[in-house]
């Protein structure tokens, strides 16, 4: 197995008196989809936001390609090649696909926006992901369907030659066909050698695309298991009770928020 691209060691995070993350360890390997599962309030989204630099961590270490790094803001994460696709999409409705994909990192030539260059790059990226469902890259995001928006959000993450892509419930609000599109896209990202972290509530999705499943329980990492080594039922037990047979936290009853 290759060297992990992103490694978290002993991450802690509190919001005031609420201790949301307890000593989280997690490794993300290139070319693999790591699913992050857990019940509501288990800390999945918080963990992703900590990695993305939106929340500062209280303690713990983040290693990127073996090097310790300090991520202080979204820009730091982006510079390392960590991209996040958020649950609530983070696309500006009034801009078109190209403008959204380059938002905050516009390509300029002599101080001016280089529209043609950006448009070509956006089309190349969409083509490389075999996205064929949008009519034009100059379509406004407001006129796209939920699946198309998710596709654009993911393509945006890929555009930056990113190395790690974190997806926060990318299929939560989608129909069957659209979920299919997005899951295919997730697999393709991993095939391109990226480290992919997928947060999902949907066990079918998780088992379909994930190589590895990390279960959070009340802010603790209950277990990290290969998706082929466990059953549906075991994962559900890990999510709801923090423990399943030999797997999970030794005494979940002692775990407190």
């Amino acid at each position, binding site marked *: 197995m290759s060297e992990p691209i992103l490694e978290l060691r002993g991450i802690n995070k509190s919001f005031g008196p609420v201790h949301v993350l307890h000593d989280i360890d997690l490794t993300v390997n290139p070319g693999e989809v790591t699913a992050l599962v857990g019940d509501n309030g288990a800390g999945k989204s918080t963990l992703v936001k900590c990695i993305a630099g*939106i929340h500062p961590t209280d303690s713990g270490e983040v290693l990127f390609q073996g090097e310790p790094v300090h991520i202080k*803001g*979204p*820009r730091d994460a*982006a510079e390392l090649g960590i991209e*996040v696709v*958020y649950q*609530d*999409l*983070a*696309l*500006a*409705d*009034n*801009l078109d696909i190209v*403008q*959204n994909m380059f*938002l*905050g*990192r*516009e390509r*300029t030539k002599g*101080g*001016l*926006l280089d529209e*043609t260059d950006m*448009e*070509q790059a956006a*089309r*190349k990226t*969409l*083509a490389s992901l075999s*996205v*064929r*469902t*949008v*009519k*034009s*890259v*100059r379509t*406004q995001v*407001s*006129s*796209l*369907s*939920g699946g198309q928006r998710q596709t654009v959000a993911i393509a945006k993450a890929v555009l930056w030659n990113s190395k790690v892509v974190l997806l926060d419930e990318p299929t939560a609000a989608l129909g069957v066909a659209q979920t299919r599109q997005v899951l295919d896209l997730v697999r393709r990202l991993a095939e391109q050698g990226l480290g992919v972290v997928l947060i999902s509530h949907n066990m079918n999705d998780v088992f379909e695309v994930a190589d590895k499943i990390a279960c959070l329980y009340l802010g603790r990492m209950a277990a990290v298991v290969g998706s082929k080594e466990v059953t549906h039922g075991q994962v559900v037990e890990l999510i709801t009770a923090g423990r399943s047979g030999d797997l999970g936290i030794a005494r979940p009853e002692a775990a407190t928020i």
Partner: protein
Amino acid sequence: MSSEEASMTDTTEKHEQETPQPGAISDFGIDTTSQSTGEAVRDYWARVRGGELGALPALLGLIVLLIVFSSLSDTFFTLGNLANLLQQGASITIIAMGLVFVLLLGEIDLSAGTASGVTASVMALHLIHNGNLLGGMGDTVFYVFCGLLVLAIALSAWMKIWAGTALSAVALIIAAVGVPANAWLEMLLAVCVGAAIGCVTGFLVAKVGIPSFVVTLALFLVWGGVVLQLIGQGGTLGLRDDTIFNVANGNLNFVGSWVLFVVAVGGYAAVVLTRHFSRLRKGLVAQPTSLVLAKIGALAVLAAVITYALSLNRAASNLIVIEGVPYVVPVVLVLLVIGTFVLDRTSYGRHIYAVGGNKEAARRAGINVERIRMSVFVIASSAAAIGAIVYSSKVGSVDPNAGAGNTLLLSVGAAVIGGTSLFGGKGRLRDAVIGGAVLAIIQNGMGLLNQPAAVVFIVTGLVLLLAASVDALSRRRAANSAR
């Protein structure tokens, strides 16, 4: 969705049958790289029906108004009145252009009107007291004024809005040094004071986090009071200076008018054609060349007719000659071009739209949202100052009501009538110009028809209401037509 999908497969097939252009990314297959005229027109029509009206309603309204007034009034469609119309509408239009930046973020600047009054009074004081603002304002007021400028410098430096810092610093230097009166210096001072005012407003909105409605409502009252204090109850500050007088009342000479025509149309054609052919060359989606040429041609003809009409003698008596394009036309054009350029071609402009469309998305994309929000108020107040110069010049004096009353409401109205959305994220600078023209025509035409002020107000208000309804309805339509 289903019809959309059908049309998608349509275009895909059509595209695959075509031989891909060299340089085009042919394996993409979802974009038609060049449209025929028919496709382009259909595409535009589909967008209009989907709720993206843009400036279309305002343009239609403009045409209707022109027809109505020229049929009702004999004097409306005379050369003299047309030039008059441009000069009357200019100040509102300029303030509205500044407000577009604020409206794009979904914010509002109610203080732009009275802030413009402050800049006009400072300008007039500087002129009348020959640069001695200390003498003109009195000790206390002068020191408070300088204190506010220092505050503006500090706030803008903190937020790294260097343009605001620089302009505020220039205002402080002019105020402190007491350079003798000079029309250009006074105008510069007005714009700089405007920028300083914007720094304070913007800071309160962006960094302190008070809703812009409340901040600017409060400052609307404050600046109104400041104007009263600077001018004195019942007083008027006369602007006896040829340069300042000419800003709104002077005209370009014959040669100048046609040079302006050539520069404006030529420049527009050059920019549009360069972009068009570079897109074609790279195999990107482009409008058909014939349509682009037709647009340029139509604009050139319209501009030529207006330039020709304005370069004829339009004086009512035989004793004097009034001819040439009014100075306010190039002033508005230059501001329009610069502003449009900033909004469309720079990352700063792109970020304004992004923050207006989805603040959270912009923040996550690494855009400094606070800085963008503060900066638009600096732009709005600076533009308000330029508007103040124009309306003071038109009247020839500054009175305690400068910028109060309707100035602001008409400016916001101009922006909204033109198609700028009050919800943010949608609008262009040319909207302000078209909207300003609509309002100027209503005011001017109703005046010529000898309508009482009551009717003028009511009609203006109803037009604004109509424009706001169009915005709200088209937005709902756009939301429904998505997916």
